[in-house]
């Protein structure tokens, strides 16, 4: 089998070259002994996150405060407990468009006025819509926190859904989604979710841009009225702030936000895929193929969550992980191969991804599935598990270091109602994972038949697709175009 050209120099050969070169280097004999091996680490210092203090306000709004002593900036977030899964059927993206209209004008002020107010105080406002919740984020200079709360109150409590602004927001969002469809990685990941979430409200987030044109300002107003209520929101403040003082300030401004009944019945998780499905997304501009092999796993609230994070690390977290070492370094099938786990309110999605040439598509898919099956049946080496844990624990502070990273994690914890094991005791949660837990997680989640998504140029991938029994062919918007049986249209 032909290997990708960029992989032709192999590590083994390079290693030999280095050894030879090293032997010929005059400095080799003269160097200090301590240079020969990597130094041992000093004693480990654990990440300490502050408590999240929750204060209920009379109208049902919950205020959560976490101190960041010394920070000159404050982050204010309003987490609305409704996300893309809550968009009405056939009106996907309504959740996103509604959130994007926050700040695009109020009953008293135009969108330009609001933007001016935000920027005048050195503020930065953004919205992010997840599957289960929406986050309105306002980073602001600490000295302007009061002004920020005033503006946020206007934006959230009295938004206007004017035709012209809605049209602008729709146009921009459509453009962003069309751009996304040019990216093979994003397109492939979206197709995987689309298949895994078939028939489930989570599928709403995977729709293409073409449905946006049917959405009206009334739809956005209706979504806002239904879900933007104080008793369906959490107000999160992080910075160098005093909890009770912030509670007073927030209460004073948001006590007029009227509580109302919000119906949002609990959502069952989507069923795990059990049918062999190979989906090919035709992207004529692709130069290489991108493969995704994945299935549904547990929700973040599950006790298997932390063992699974360690398992994911072992499988494909870094260039030292099994997939990379096998598919790239050993077999030479892929330019790169990793795995990832993404979590939602009711479930998670675990998948391996690899960038390959057309010649190695089939072999790479088979090898990934073989890896999954092998993991479920073999005993892990304790050193391998400890190394994965060490990476995850060592990497934790980096995830919390920036204001944005800290705020995003905090919002997730409060939105999904995760316990302290996901925040203050997160290091303990990881350290307690052992070989048995990981094996158990592998046996529970990896044997299920995964969905395979391949993104590439159909013309040059035609030969490779003959290797698969049945292939569903989609365009980059996700529309099914045809089915191929061993490469031939059915």
């Amino acid at each position, binding site marked *: 089998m032909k290997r990708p050209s*960029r992989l032709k*120099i192999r*590590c083994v*050969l*390079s*290693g030999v*070259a*280095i050894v030879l*070169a*090293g032997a010929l*280097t005059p*400095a*080799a004999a003269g*160097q*200090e002994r*301590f*240079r*020969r*091996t*990597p130094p*041992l*680490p*000093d004693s*480990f*210092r*654990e*990440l300490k996150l502050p408590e999240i203090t929750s204060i209920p306000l009379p109208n049902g709004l919950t205020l959560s405060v976490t101190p960041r002593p*010394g920070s*000159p*900036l404050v982050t204010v977030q309003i987490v609305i407990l409704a996300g893309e899964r809550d968009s009405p059927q056939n009106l996907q993206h309504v959740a996103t468009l509604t959130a994007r209209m926050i700040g695009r004008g109020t009953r008293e002020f135009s969108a*330009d006025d609001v*933007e*001016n107010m935000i*920027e*005048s*105080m*050195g*503020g*930065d406002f953004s919205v992010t819509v997840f599957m289960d919740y929406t986050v309105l984020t306002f*980073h*602001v*200079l600490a000295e*302007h926190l009061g002004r920020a709360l005033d503006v946020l109150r206007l934006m959230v409590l009295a938004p206007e859904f004017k035709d012209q602004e809605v049209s602008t927001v729709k146009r921009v969002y459509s453009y962003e989604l069309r751009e996304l469809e040019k990216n093979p990685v994003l397109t492939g990941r979206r197709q995987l979710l689309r298949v895994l979430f078939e028939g489930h409200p989570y599928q709403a987030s995977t729709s293409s841009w073409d449905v946006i044109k049917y959405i009206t300002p009334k739809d956005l107003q209706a979504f806002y009225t239904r879900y933007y209520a104080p008793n369906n929101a959490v107000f999160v403040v992080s910075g160098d702030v005093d909890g009770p003082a912030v509670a007073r300030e927030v209460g004073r401004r948001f006590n007029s936000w009227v509580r109302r009944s919000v119906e949002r019945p609990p959502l069952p998780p989507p069923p795990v895929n059990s049918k062999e499905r190979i989906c090919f997304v035709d992207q004529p501009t692709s*130069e290489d193929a991108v493969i995704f092999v994945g299935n549904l796993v547990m929700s973040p609230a599950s006790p298997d969550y932390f063992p699974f994070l360690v398992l994911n690390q072992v499988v494909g977290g*870094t*260039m*030292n992980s099994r997939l990379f070492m096998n598919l790239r370094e050993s077999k030479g099938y892929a330019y790169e191969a990793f795995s990832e786990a993404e979590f939602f309110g009711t479930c998670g999605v675990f998948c391996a991804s690899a960038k390959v040439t057309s010649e190695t598509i089939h072999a790479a898919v088979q090898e990934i599935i073989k890896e999954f099956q092998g993991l479920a049946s073999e005993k892990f080496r304790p050193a391998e598990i400890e*190394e994965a844990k*060490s*990476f995850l*624990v*060592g*990497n*934790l*502070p*980096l995830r*919390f*270091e*920036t*204001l944005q990273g800290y705020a995003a994690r905090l919002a997730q914890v409060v939105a999904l109602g995760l316990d302290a094991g996901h925040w203050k005791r997160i290091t303990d949660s990881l350290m307690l994972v052992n070989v048995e837990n990981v094996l158990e997680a592998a046996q529970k989640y990896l044997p299920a038949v995964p969905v395979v998504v391949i993104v590439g140029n159909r013309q040059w991938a035609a030969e490779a697709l003959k290797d698969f029994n049945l292939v569903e062919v989609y365009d980059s918007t996700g529309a099914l175009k045809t089915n191929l049986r061993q490469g031939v249209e059915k």
Partner: protein
Amino acid sequence: MSKLTTSFMTAALLFSFGPPCARPQEAVSPGWKFPVEEYRLRNGLRVVLSEDGSFPLVSVAVVYGAGSIREQRGQIGLALLMENLMFQGSENVSPLQHVNFVQRTGGVLNANTTLDKAAYYETLPSNQLALALWLESDRMRSLQIIPGAIERKKEELLDEYRRRLATEPYMESYAVFDTFLYPDFPHGHPLIGTGEDLKKLTEADVKAFYASYYLPGNAVLSIVGDIQIARTKELVARYFDSVPAGNLVPSPPLPQFEQDREVVRSLKEMLFPTPGFHLGYRLSPLQTGDIYTLRILEYVLFRGRTSRVGTRILKKDLTAYYMNAELEERPGGPALKIFALNNNEVMAERCQKAIVSEIDKLKVGVVSEDELDKAKNLFKLDYLRRLASRVDRALYLAEAAFEDVPVQALASQLEQHMRVNPQAMNSLVNRLFVPRNKVVLNVRVR
């Protein structure tokens, strides 16, 4: 290079009347709350330490004065190639193991090359500081330069360049524009160019570049995070003291820019999807305080959603559908660079006139205090947000040390920007935004 690391250097230089090696200093201001200590090893390596125990992390940056400005004619791409080869192994670290060692700890790493510098940096759990110093010192003293790795990296760089060109068709026009804005070769040539020079680079070229510029005396080691100063100094001495000093590295050439009128050129021979243009001003010579005013001016005109030019061309006139503008700070003087894409050539022309007219308005009138406050607040937000990251702070300090900026100057940086006044802005625009400093490159659809 991150904005933070390119910023603030010139300003600090203009006010750096203190001795070049002002040592242990406490710099405290509303914007800069971190203690900084700076010293120099016998081999010339400048070391900057800054303790911040709020997270158990440490960022280590090694910045070499080895950017593309050091390349000779026929060597375009050498600095970038060198950056890639720095991950191909050294005497005690086999190829790519540098990446593996850092990643195993949960750390992250990166590198970048600019006109004047090549920066290597990693952030790790703070108990792994020694590992980072071991890795960085090993490649500073004993990089393994192997012909096979050179050829492989050349191929990868060219491949990456071709791919980027396919998805970013305006990349080439950016490079062409730089040759007009910076007509002298050391300053105006691109990082990689067409790739013709890169293909011809030899093992001897690479070895000579490494031997000439990857030297302790031409580098700064910056360490920021959860460190103990005494212990860190011990580790720095252990790993870097014995790295040979090498030859003295000459200062890079200063840019030449002399034109007596506006220069307008067009680019037609490349395939572009829609028309657009590059508009630039070379902003020199600068007077005391000009750089602070320029940075706030950048916010008045271009930054945020409510800037003057953004509002005019993207929201009101709709003459452009994309615009990017930045104040590029380089040795020898900054430049304001604007790039806009338009639906047709008529729109491109109107858009260009609109931008120039917005600049001209600042010549005849002064900006209001409210508008200036808005620009300053946005600047402050960005400044503080960047300082929240240890690695950005490490790079910033490395650059400051590289430019011999005393650490006392750091404390007053933010305050200097907050003092910019409307009259200073009016005077600066009249002085610097003149036709002889202006260069235009029109990008036409073939």
